[in-house]
């Protein structure tokens, strides 16, 4: 009897030892469950981000107004020619006479870096903004200046008024009630973000079209309908140093 009992106990012992090897401990099982939970959360997280990417991409594809608006507001290049054209139209429309213009070179406004660390994901996915400044001197009435600023505010382009000075006119060639202003305007443009796809994808976690409210509608911009390309006579001239009489 004792032998049989010992035999069975030894079998249980062997099973116990073998199972200890095969079956993980309580802590290991807890860890495996935690791993599964984390994996499921990562999947849900990825699904959510990819859904947001798809929804936004689809929305931009279906309505290209937003895309046009975005690249008009912050173009990839300075487009100084368009800026000068716009300023000329702003002055003409408001009745302000622009009698001096000067422009400064490009300045780096902000940069984005190629980042990989998970702690640095948010906030690093940024456009590489640059700007140039245009200083203009104007002459006009008070009302025309107000219209000038209204037109500037309605431009499709990102423009910041860095400095404004409005003085009473002392020059006798202009009307007595005319005002003279010196205005420094900052026009921004931006290159795309250099962040890695992983960092960009992370930013899509909380993005949706609901977060974007279109600031300017087509009929609220100056000039109405948006700035058109300049028209000019092509063909050149034999002597580029003299205008034809």
């Amino acid at each position: 009897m004792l032998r049989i009992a010992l035999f069975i106990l030894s079998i249980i012992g062997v099973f116990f030892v073998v199972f200890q090897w095969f079956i993980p401990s309580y802590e290991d099982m807890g860890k495996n469950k935690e791993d599964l939970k984390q994996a499921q959360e990562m999947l849900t997280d990825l699904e959510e981000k990819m859904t947001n990417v798809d929804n936004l991409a689809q929305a931009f594809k279906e309505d290209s107004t937003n895309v046009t608006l975005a690249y008009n507001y912050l173009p990839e290049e300075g487009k100084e020619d368009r800026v000068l054209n716009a300023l000329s139209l702003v002055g003409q429309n408001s009745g302000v006479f622009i009698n001096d213009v000067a422009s400064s070179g490009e300045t780096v406004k902000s940069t984005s870096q190629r980042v990989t660390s998970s702690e640095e994901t948010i906030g690093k996915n940024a456009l590489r903004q640059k700007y140039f400044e245009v200083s203009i001197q104007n002459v006009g009435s008070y009302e025309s200046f107000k219209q000038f600023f209204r037109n500037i505010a309605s431009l499709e382009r990102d423009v910041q008024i860095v400095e404004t000075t409005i003085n009473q006119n002392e020059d006798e060639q202009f009307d007595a009630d005319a005002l003279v202003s010196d205005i420094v305007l900052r026009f921004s443009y931006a290159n795309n973000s250099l962040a890695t796809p992983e960092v960009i994808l992370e930013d899509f976690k909380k993005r949706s079209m609901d977060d974007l409210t279109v600031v300017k509608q087509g009929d609220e911009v100056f000039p109405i309908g948006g700035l058109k390309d300049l028209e000019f006579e092509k063909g050149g001239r034999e002597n580029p140093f003299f205008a034809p009489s």
Partner: protein
Amino acid sequence: MGDSINLYQESASKKKKRKDPFDKALFGMLFLLVLVCAGYGGLFTYNQSIKNETTNVKDETQQMRASLDEEMMIETNDVYLRLEAMQNSGGRAEDILKQLGVLEQVVVPDAVIETYTFTTEERGMQLTVVADFLDGISRQITAFRDSEQFSSVEVISLKLEEERGLVAEVHVTLGS
């Protein structure tokens, strides 16, 4: 003779009685063995299923990530960032119009704003106020201070000039 028969029967029944506890113990041990096997087997299966599910979920995640069109995502991100910047651009030219509108409301008849300067960095207005008499300047400064539109009013200088009259340099800041 009869006694010997009785003694034999007694010893046989004793032997029978001795077998019972052994059987029970054996049964109990086997039952314990089966129980341990079943318990461990169940745990093993459960743990394996967790591991398998984790592997499946990770595979699915990898497949889904691989299916992402990164070029499309980068383009979408670019448009989104530009629209976001547009949204957060703030007033700018509207700020100037707002300030001029406030000045229209607070300027007194005895004084004139000769110069208006606004810089983004300082956020305030630098004004040159001119009046023929001292009470004109004082009324204008009082009007600035009484107005709820301004959060701060600071008189920087005051001087009398022969041609212009009384000239005051005032720095005012619009309230939020």
